[in-house]
């Protein structure tokens, strides 16, 4: 019973309510919001080693014990996500502070951001499938409101697309929950994994797994379901894109990792080739779509789609090494995406347009910004010695162990192709002389610049501490795949299979 697990749920909730109430005093609101997010960050940093040393942390909500009451569970994977969520939110808040106009800032930007943080924390900490659904819906509503913030016509359009696609995905998950309850009679992840393991007809759990797969592939922007994503990143304010880039697809990936490794390990073997196929297509479609864009944020958002493919590939391999590589990639990608959306947002802000054809000469005007952008871009593509390289190396090694040569080819090809959009941007935005017909860009102000610089320096720290990152992600992958240990820790009994019916 570790009641500290309530901290990341209550603090953003209280913060959000407070921020709503005192919304008329922006300075005070900002302080409250910073404080809340900092509490989360500090808590996450504290949870990280604790999970590694003491194993899973569990607690229960209310008075009922594990299989009936709703529990909270934190293991390595959740702890990583708690830290990432706080980090990304902190940067988004900082960035929002620097770039948002007064009206949008007062129109519940901060409470909504805190609600996103709350729902992400809820998703990663819950031990119950239905609870997971509820948190996903909370995330959906909060994200929808953030997309709509400002209410331009294009935002309305993407908001509608986002909500319809994601809602259908979530409802597929809800159907999955219902069927799961009908089949195994429980919604607790630990107990369900126990009972699903003893099902006599394996086809049933494959159907369940597919329903869950549809839901989270929508959330994670996997290929046939990824088209809500690009618009949702390039129409709302930049600070929202910074937040979404680090979190929105990552929670889908998290849910896939969590449920497939605990509840459907057998179906993972069966569905593995499908996952790999989807992953490969996501990578290629994302990268090819990115190549033809001229808007900087649109380009970045298609790149984000192709990165989701790598993380799905890590799951599709079905091995512990693959999952560990996936977790590494998840951590790295979350930081790097929000860094690059920050940098891209600054570019857009100072040039007053997102169109790269109308920018130019920024390497000379803003050398520091150019450096930050360059580091973030190289890290995203995975050029050694930056962190993305090590994560991809681990992934490719894991894939080669499984002799999955096809997907390795696609992954490497995508990686080479991923350089192209960045070369284009570098050429157009930084090297080309500034187009004469267009007024010169603004200067970068330090407060806009700080979040991107902080994230990039975290990326560099990531490289220096790559040994411990590898160790931790191996540990997290091991914990995530250890279904018996999960059942033991959550249910508090020695896991012995009980007969499941039907």
């Amino acid at each position: 019973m570790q009641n500290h697990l309530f901290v990341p749920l209550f603090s953003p909730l209280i913060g959000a309510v407070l921020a709503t109430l005192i919304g008329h005093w922006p300075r005070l609101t900002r302080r409250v919001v910073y404080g809340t997010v900092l509490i989360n960050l500090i808590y996450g940093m504290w949870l990280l080693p604790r999970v590694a040393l003491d194993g899973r942390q569990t607690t229960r909500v209310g008075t009922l014990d594990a299989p009936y009451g709703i529990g909270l569970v934190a293991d390595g994977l959740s702890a990583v996500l708690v830290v990432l969520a706080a980090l990304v939110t902190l940067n988004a808040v900082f960035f929002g502070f620097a770039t948002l106009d007064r009206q949008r800032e007062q129109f519940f930007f901060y409470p909504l951001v805190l609600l996103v943080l709350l729902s992400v924390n809820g998703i990663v900490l819950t031990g119950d499938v239905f609870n997971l659904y509820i948190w996903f819906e909370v995330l959906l509503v909060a994200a929808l409101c953030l997309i709509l913030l400002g209410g331009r016509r294009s935002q309305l359009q993407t908001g509608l697309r986002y909500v319809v696609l994601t809602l259908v995905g979530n409802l597929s998950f809800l159907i999955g929950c219902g069927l799961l309850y009908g089949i195994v009679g429980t919604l607790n992840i630990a107990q369900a994994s126990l009972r699903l393991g003893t099902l006599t007809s394996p086809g049933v759990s494959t159907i369940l797994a597919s329903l869950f797969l549809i839901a989270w592939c929508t959330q994670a922007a996997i290929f046939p379901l990824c088209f809500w994503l690009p618009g949702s990143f390039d129409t709302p304010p930049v600070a929202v894109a910074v937040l979404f880039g680090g979190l929105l697809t990552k929670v889908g990936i998290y849910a896939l990792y969590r449920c497939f490794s605990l509840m459907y390990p057998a179906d993972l073997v069966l569905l593995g080739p499908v996952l790999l196929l989807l992953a490969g297509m996501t990578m290629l479609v994302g990268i090819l779509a990115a190549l033809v864009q001229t808007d900087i944020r649109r380009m970045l958002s298609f790149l984000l789609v192709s990165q989701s493919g790598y993380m799905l590939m890590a799951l599709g391999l079905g091995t512990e090494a693959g999952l560990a590589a996936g977790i590494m990639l998840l951590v790295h990608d979350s930081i790097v995406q929000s860094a690059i959306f920050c940098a891209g947002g600054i570019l857009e802000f100072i040039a007053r347009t997102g169109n790269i054809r109308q920018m130019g000469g920024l390497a000379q005007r803003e050398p520091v910004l150019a450096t930050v952008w360059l580091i973030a871009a190289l890290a995203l593509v995975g050029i050694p010695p930056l962190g993305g390289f090590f994560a991809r190396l681990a992934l490719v090694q894991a894939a080669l162990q499984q002799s999955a040569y096809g997907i390795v080819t696609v992954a490497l090809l995508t990686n080479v192709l991923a350089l192209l959009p960045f070369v284009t941007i570098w050429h157009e935005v930084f090297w080309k002389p500034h187009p004469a017909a267009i007024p010169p860009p603004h200067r970068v102000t330090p407060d806009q610049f700080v979040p991107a610089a902080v994230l990039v320096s975290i990326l560099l720290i990531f490289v220096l501490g790559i040994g411990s990152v590898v160790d931790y992600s191996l540990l997290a992958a091991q914990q995530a795949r250890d279904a018996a240990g999960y059942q033991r820790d959550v249910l508090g009994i020695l896991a012995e299979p009980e007969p499941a019916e039907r």
Partner: protein
Amino acid sequence: MALVVGSLFAGATYMLLRRNIVRLLLGIVLLLHSVSLLLFTMTDVRRGVPPIIVEEALAATTPGVPGTASRTGQAQPILGASGQADPLPQVLILLSSMVGFALLLCLLVLVYRIYQTVGSDDLDGLAHMDST
């Protein structure tokens, strides 16, 4: 019951694919309802058996939620030893319809804003991005 759920799903899908934005909204409503109904049929539906646990009956059964306790047997109806229906799916329906209701409100506001901006209920009118 299965037929009703199936036809609701079919209707919802049809509505979702229409261009008219109000139909889209109705499609989502139908989808929410059909999922609720699906959840309801997950357990054995019996007439006149309320999902209320009677004190003395509780003592007779294994501790915990009665429906789940009896699930370890094979194809038995999902009823506790005391004969009450399994309350959990109904709780799920309650929660999911609450969430659905909240979502629907958001959607309604969104649709109204779209109607205000575009001046029609045709989704294609939205496709012209920010022409102003």
